[in-house]
């Protein structure tokens, strides 16, 4: 019969997502800009989180609302496929936001600045212990040169042996692509295809 449920003959657009995590100022936005077809979009997100301690004076739900800024980029990979890159808010106390951004992600990249390793430790810890999303760690070469041996970085940040660790220049499209591909290949090698829809926690 001549009836179709779809009004358009254009292919259905599908989307995929990669999360870029790491501490404040490690180069997440730079990394997103290096490959995004749009300037990274900064958006306000808000969430309600359960208060750590219930304040009897609030008398009610024990919830507080917080706003965080996050940014994202977009890459049209094909007529029917678009990839989004989401930079997570830097502060680890926004783990609920990280859960939300990571849900449904194909991979994550934790970006590290060797001058401030501790800034990215919470992100490594999060993906090691609290999320099912496969991840790779990328050491951002701010001056184009590697000042730390990757093995030392792995040890300092307690990154599991199976997690890909590579150097990356967040300003270079080629380098960022190589990093994203490494993370996606890691997903292919380690993730059971049916598990990706599961909640991060």
């Amino acid at each position, binding site marked *: 019969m001549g009836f179709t449920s779809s009004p358009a003959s254009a292919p259905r657009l599908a989307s*995929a997502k990669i999360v870029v995590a790491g501490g404040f100022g490690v180069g997440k936005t730079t990394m997103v800009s290096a*490959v995004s077809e749009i300037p990274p979009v900064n958006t306000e997100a808000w969430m*309600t989180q359960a208060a750590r301690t219930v304040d009897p004076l609030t008398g009610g739900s024990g919830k507080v609302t917080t706003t965080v800024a996050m940014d994202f980029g977009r*890459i049209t990979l094909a007529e029917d496929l678009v*990839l989004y890159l989401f930079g997570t808010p830097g502060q680890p106390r926004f783990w609920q936001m990280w859960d939300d951004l990571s849900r*449904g992600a194909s991979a994550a990249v934790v970006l590290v600045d060797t001058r401030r390793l501790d800034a990215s430790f919470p992100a490594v810890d999060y993906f090691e212990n609290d999320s099912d999303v496969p991840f790779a760690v990328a050491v951002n070469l701010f001056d184009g040169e590697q000042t730390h041996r990757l093995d030392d970085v792995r040890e300092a940040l307690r990154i599991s042996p199976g997690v890909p660790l590579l150097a990356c220049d967040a300003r270079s499209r080629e380098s960022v692509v190589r990093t994203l591909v490494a993370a996606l290949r890691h*997903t292919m090698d380690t993730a059971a295809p049916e598990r990706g829809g599961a909640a991060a926690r």
Partner: protein
Amino acid sequence: MRPPHGPGPGGANPWVRPYVLTGGRTRTRQRLHVHTLVSVPYYDPGYADLLPPEARSLYDTAHTAVQSIAELSAHCSVSLGVARVLLGDMAARERLVVNPEAYTSPYDPRLLERVIDGLHQLAR
């Protein structure tokens, strides 16, 4: 009823409006990820006229192109949490089309291969 917070330093409580808009809800029936694509293929001006400004803006913008929840949130300056609830309501009322997942999961090897191929072309 008391708002969840007292007034901020600027005077007005910035949370009252989002709270009122969504009736205090932070979740939707349908799971909408930040990268979930939605559109309004059949625009209904009568329905649009009845919407409060934030929802109207989202509805109008979603009509212009297929785009993600995050893009709609950013383009309409409606915070992500509020946008998700308002768009979820429209989807529940069949005013908004949520693109069905084309792949079984974000770890589907067919999807991963296509993303990798696309990225390689980008670097060329």
